[in-house]
């Protein structure tokens, strides 16, 4: 593989989107010191330049923590925000309580599709987009895990 850093790609940080190769601001304006490259420390943390101040960042998987604020960082194809998902999956291992839609139903973004229970709490799984329900795989009482597709909604 070549130097992957040359790949032009954007990344999404929380809900913000930036170029992957931008340098943290603070060192780029005319006359100021050259941009400071992030520096890895022996404990796996990374020193980064945040507005001209060196801060310690901690990274695990797609999570980055700086100064008590944690954001997920993901590469984004094409530079716009990630495409809307079409499937609904539980965020944690859970039990299906109710299925609120059927194949063929037209749903709005944010509409409740399925409720699941975990940690004695019920949580509604909502449609990530407006569209039509093309598959329902959830059954009340079923144990489900993250990644399992419970409902598929396709855009119209």
């Amino acid at each position, binding site marked *: 593989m070549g130097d992957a850093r040359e790949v032009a790609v954007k990344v999404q940080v929380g809900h913000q989107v930036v170029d992957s190769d931008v340098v943290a601001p603070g060192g780029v304006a005319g006359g100021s010191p050259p941009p400071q490259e992030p520096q890895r420390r022996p404990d796996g943390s990374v020193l980064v330049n945040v507005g001209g101040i060196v801060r310690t960042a901690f990274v695990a998987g797609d999570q980055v923590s700086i100064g008590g604020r944690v954001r997920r960082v993901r590469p984004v194809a094409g530079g716009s925000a990630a495409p809307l998902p079409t499937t609904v999956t539980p*965020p944690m291992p859970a039990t299906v309580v109710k299925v609120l839609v059927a194949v063929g139903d037209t749903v709005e973004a944010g509409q409740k599709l399925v409720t699941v229970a975990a940690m004695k709490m019920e949580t509604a799984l909502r449609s990530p987009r407006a569209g039509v329900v093309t598959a329902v795989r959830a059954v009340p009482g079923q144990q489900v895990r993250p990644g399992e597709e419970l409902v598929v909604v396709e855009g119209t």
Partner: protein
Amino acid sequence: MPIQRLLIANRGEIAIRVARTAREMGIATVAVYSDADADAPHVRACDTAVRLGPAPPAESYLAVDRLLAAARVSGADAVHPGYGFLAENAAFAQAVLDAGLTWVGPAPAVITAMGDKVGARQRMRAAGVPVVPGVESDDPATIAALGFPVLVKAAGGGGGKGMRRVDAVEALAEALAEARSEATTAFGDGRVYAERLVERPRHVEVQVLGDTFGTIAHLGERECSIQRRHQKLVEEAPSPALDAATRARFCAAAVEAARAVGYTGAGTVEFLLDAEGHFYFLEMNTRIQVEHPITELVTGVDIVREQLRIAMGQALGYTEVPARGHAIECRIVAEDPSRGFLPSPGRIARWRLPVGPGVRVDAGVEEGSEVGLFYDPLLAKVIVHAPDRAAACARMVNALADLVVLGVDTTAELLMDVVASAPFAAGDTTTDFLERFAWSPPDVDAAAYAAAWRAAPVVTAIAHGAGPTAEPSPWATLGRWR
């Protein structure tokens, strides 16, 4: 009678907290654990440990017979229940006593009396302690006569379960049915009652201690108004809402409440405080509270030590301890506040705790711990103490900025912003605070996050399944995102 060996019938941060004081007092400690907790920090915090059973609480931390067997095989002569699980279960307390062991808590009859919320209201009213106007009945017509809005509550327990706000008579029948059903599930007791709703109240409580000689002491109040789903997230002592005169009446009422039931051990009398400074008895918790450390910091009293001293038959020797300075606690819970406090189980991939003058952390997990779905998602409590409230706020914000928790989502960032906010600084803390605050994660210097992510070693980026690699750049694993 002295305690030689204490079995701690709990897990997580409170088990570690209790073990710490027991060790200071020269008391040997026995941990108990479920299969999910075999490698948990609380197991290593004690001198010995006894396995209870599988992960589900009913087969481990709630299994009375298994806990008693653990006490027997380990040679324990006393049981500390912590909070939650069996801490307010009178049958467990009685079983401990029947086994010839010392129970670190109030008498079973007192637990029963205060655990019945309806009975407790009646006792408190008889003792002259103000209670929220209400009716100990689930008859719709009787409830409607209170005037709306009302709060329907479970007689058998607290924690927001079986609780319903009702704004009009049309919604009453359904709310009563729901509350009964929820209360039956949660407490095995479907009785409900109703109180007139106190609008935008504060939740203020008083720490009391009672010894076996009839002395009742108080350690002042805590304000715990910042809540989600009726569960506390931020607590502070003293309350910013009480002046000296109200505080004196307030604490005296709490002492009367404890005296009325012949209270022994550590307990908490909870009140609602309305905007006009009227306070009403809410309930009494017959155990140590999650938020006890803020009282410890402002009074210098080790509440667990007092619990153990009282259980050993020693006299308190005081009736009140003045507060010095201001303390705040933030609960770091594995939930995602940007998604309605959805539980966030997972493995703690990174774990760094704040340190410094006036900073205390009571934690129950460590780096590598699995946060599962079986137990309370409280990971740690960050507690600060400073000379005044403004200094305590600043100290808390700094402490939370230094806290690193990765691998699960937590309440830490939300609470950092809460404590730094203008309404919190102004002491405008009512139980609807978080609804009014309407937090979402603010924009950050995204370029710095992207740069850090790009530069970090990939070791933990494999959580999603690629297997360990020494590759220095996360771009090496870009393929899976394409």
